[in-house]
């Protein structure tokens, strides 16, 4: 007995969700850094 579709779906979810968050957070961090570099009087951070 094999249940490949169930296994594949589980692994796609388990890897996809953290990946989605990691990419989203990286983009958010980059945007915040650029913004801060423009307006922060203390300069680099």
């Amino acid at each position, binding site marked *: 007995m094999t249940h490949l579709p169930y296994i594949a779906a589980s692994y796609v979810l388990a890897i996809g969700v953290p990946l989605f968050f990691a990419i989203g957070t*990286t983009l958010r961090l980059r945007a915040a850094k650029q913004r801060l570099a423009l307006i922060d009087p203390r300069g680099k951070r």
Partner: protein
Amino acid sequence: MDTRQTVAPPRPVKLFHRFANPGQFLRLSGRVLPWLYGSGVLLTAIGVIWGLFFAPDDWQQGDTVKIMYVHVPFAWLASAGYVSLAICSVLSLIWRHPLADLAAAELGPVGAAFTAVCLATGSLWGKPTWGAWWVWDARLTSVFVLFLLYLGHIALVRAFDDPTRGYRAGAILALVGVINLPIIKFSVNWWNTLHQPASIGLTGAPTIAASLLWPLLFTTLGFTLLFAAITVARTRAGVMERRIRMLLMAKTSEASQS
């Protein structure tokens, strides 16, 4: 509740306050983050490849047992994430720790998503093994309640115009919800449930054969590191965004004065 006792002693307070400094946090987290991501990806990859291609099948379930390698880490992180949320809430309510507020607000969505994955993979495991996608037994229901608690926290933290009031309300909700954690843990022992009892505990050896257990240890540690990495990165972004808001506010008030 044990989560409170761990933060109660006065000695670590000074330590907390050193990290309360947002500049300090940004420096430290910037150094730690690549290592968290790197080790998390590495351990998860080892665990997943080992589990999918090298670990033997279970004698009853066949290859369906491979879902365990992703379901169990997410189930553990659903609860562990909530414990972190509760710790942040205590730090926020008692010590008015500014970083704890930001961290709690950033933890909520990650915890909710991981709980959703736990429920979904559990469902995908339940259909072929038990014969049902979902049953309302005590374990499944209490984890579903945990998911609702996360959603409530996400909504409450963002519901007020004054963010401080949102953080306060969210912290109280999070601490009330802590009562659900022992219910999740012990539901399978206290009541008749369709969900099986824990295979790995603090007392007694695990009831999983060693050849099936190893990949699980890797994926559990790997996903935990990834969860930590995502949370730290989000909190970093939160600190920076708050600084941007404050700078912009200062600028507009300067402009209106001159």
